[in-house]
């Protein structure tokens, strides 16, 4: 079984670069999409173990990406439940509630600690982590 990857959907190049560095250190493979559309495409072409997604994206809002994924899971287009984590600057309790209601497994707010991110990966992809 090939190693599953983390799908990062993030339009800000600075953040994307940080995430790549952190996962590189952790030994986790990632694929990066800077738009929602690209992210959804990668979900079909790659072995994805979990998704880390921004909310403010240039094309599709993060909540809608999550909804599409959950719908695909229900209809069998995606085999099983993929852990979905929002990583966003929206830090209001109302925003968090909205994200969890949309079906997210976790809601992380920016700025974030690298440790928290790594703990989250360990939680959802214990087999793929080497730390």
């Amino acid at each position, binding site marked *: 079984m090939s190693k599953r990857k983390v799908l990062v959907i993030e339009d800000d190049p600075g953040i994307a670069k*940080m995430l790549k*560095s952190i996962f590189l*250190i952790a030994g986790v493979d990632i694929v990066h999409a800077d738009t929602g559309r690209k992210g959804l495409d990668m979900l079909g072409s790659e072995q994805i173990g979990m998704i880390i997604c921004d909310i403010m994206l240039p*094309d599709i809002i993060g909540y809608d990406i999550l909804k599409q994924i959950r719908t695909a899971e229900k209809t069998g287009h995606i085999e099983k439940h993929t852990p979905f984590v929002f990583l966003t*600057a*929206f*830090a209001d309790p109302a925003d968090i509630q909205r994200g969890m209601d949309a079906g997210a497994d976790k809601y992380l707010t920016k*700025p*974030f600690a690298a440790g928290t991110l790594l703990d989250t990966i360990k939680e959802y992809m214990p087999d793929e982590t080497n730390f």
Partner: protein
Amino acid sequence: MVNTMQLVFNTFSSGLLVEDADRKIMFVNKKFLNIFDIHAEPEDLTGADCAVAAQQSMHLFKDPEQFLKDAADIPLQGIEQKDQVQLADGRYFIRKYSPIFENGKLLCHVWNYEEITILKNKEDELRQQKEFFHTVLDEIPADIAIFSPQHRYIYLNKTAIKSDGIRKWMIGKDDYEYVEMRGLDISIAHDRRAKFNKAKETRQAQSWVSEHPAPDGGTNYVLRIFYPYFNAKDELEFVIGYGVNINQQKESELAVEQEKERFSTLVDTLNDGVFQMTFDAEIQLFNKAFLKMMHLGEIDITGQYRKEIMSNVYPEDKKLLYAAFDTLKETQEPQQGMFKRLNPFTGETAYIEYYIWHRHTQADGDVVAGRLSDVTERETREHSMQRLITKEKELNNLKSHFIHITSHELRTPLSVIMSSAEILEMCETQGEEVAALIDTASMTSGIVKEVNRITDILDELLMVGRIESGKIKFDPVQVDVKEYIDTITRELFLPHQDGRNLQIKVDGDLDNVYIDKSLVRHAVNNLVGNAFKYSPGKEAPELHVYEHDGQLVIEVKDHGIGIPKNELNSLFTSFYRASNVGNISGTGIGLMVVEHVAKTHNGTIKVKSKQAEGSVFTMQLPLRNK
């Protein structure tokens, strides 16, 4: 012969007595005996002495002594005479005495008594009647004059002319002679003649009020009337003129007028407009404030209809007022509300509150009464209060929005900084293996870049603060536009972080332009930055700089999402962001700064946009700002 004459004389209706020269009765007829109640045959009296007979019958006369005297004196005078005598019983007679001569010698005396009692009584009656009517006419408290068709006085009563002499003189005269005699103005005669002629021509009574100075220094008001009288043959027989003193009526009229004036003065001092109109919407009464509130000027609108009066009322409110009027008419329930009225000269709007109710008046029957109050001040205050509240709310919303957006905008660079720091720390603590994986130089430069990003946001915020407090420094210097645009675009956008290249075009030789380099850099940065930001995945934006009409034109065109038409006006408000920005980040500050830059340069900023097609922002700045 004598007998035949006797029979003839006896047929006479008057009493006849003939005496001879010696005053002996020659002849007497039956009627004579009847008159004096003498019970004898006429023939029996022949030869009787007349003086004796007179003595015997004197008692039959009302004035016996006079009779006796006449009987003796008249025949002595030897001439024909005629007079009236009255008997003691009241009968009247015309006594005619005729001496008859033959060849100069007195032959006989003839006495003829003709009874005129009935005639006399009739005359008396007529005289009394005449006196009665004269008295009545004289006592009437009105001037009465009867004129001939030629306008000459036929009669005047005592009220008209007190002096008997003048009154008598006036008969047969006209007003020209009268005014000349009295030394009055001839115009009086002219006026009266004109009225007289008019009465004649129109066959109608003519009336007018003439004013005369009164003895007490006041004025006498006389109502004068010429009444033409046409007889059965339809000929003008006379004209009756009468004049009545109407001082009293005039006084009460004046009092009513004064009362009305006092009342209307009082009503005019009211700030509220009051009015009365018929149910056919015809105005009857109104005060000054009413005119003012309807903006009609100081005119008399009595008799005008609501349509004319409401010419300045807003059309939509006019409909409401008509409806209220109709409802009142139908239900008789008072109606109230408010309407707006335009001042056509200033374009200002007045807010008028109205209250109308049904009223029954003795003079006018059922009418609509109304009261108007100008509440413009209150309404304006309320409106401005409302505007302030709305503005306040808007500002509050904008503020919350701003805080939300800004915190979001700050969180992203902070994340990068924080993660970079953590990663660098890991490189330190977890040994060379980890360090080998990481490009630490890029980490530190990333930190610097994100700090700059935060600084930019903070700068923008400070800029807003400075703009709003008016503390922006304006420092125009001479620039070569081509060089200047080259420099700033290279610094800012070449290439843009998404890989697209700004299309730049600078026309003309613009080397002597005065602008504030820092401010314009801000503006261009914002406009071009926006053009990129709101056109992801589309053709690259274009920057076109040229001169037009003494202005430096900086035009930024994109092929992006565009701006909804109804939001174009709010675009330059601080923190405002169009509804279609979606997930594109931004603080809503940029365009406000751009507008400020334009204004500071005495220039303008305009936008043309079509949703889903793109926008063109055009900033025009005067070439020389010093």
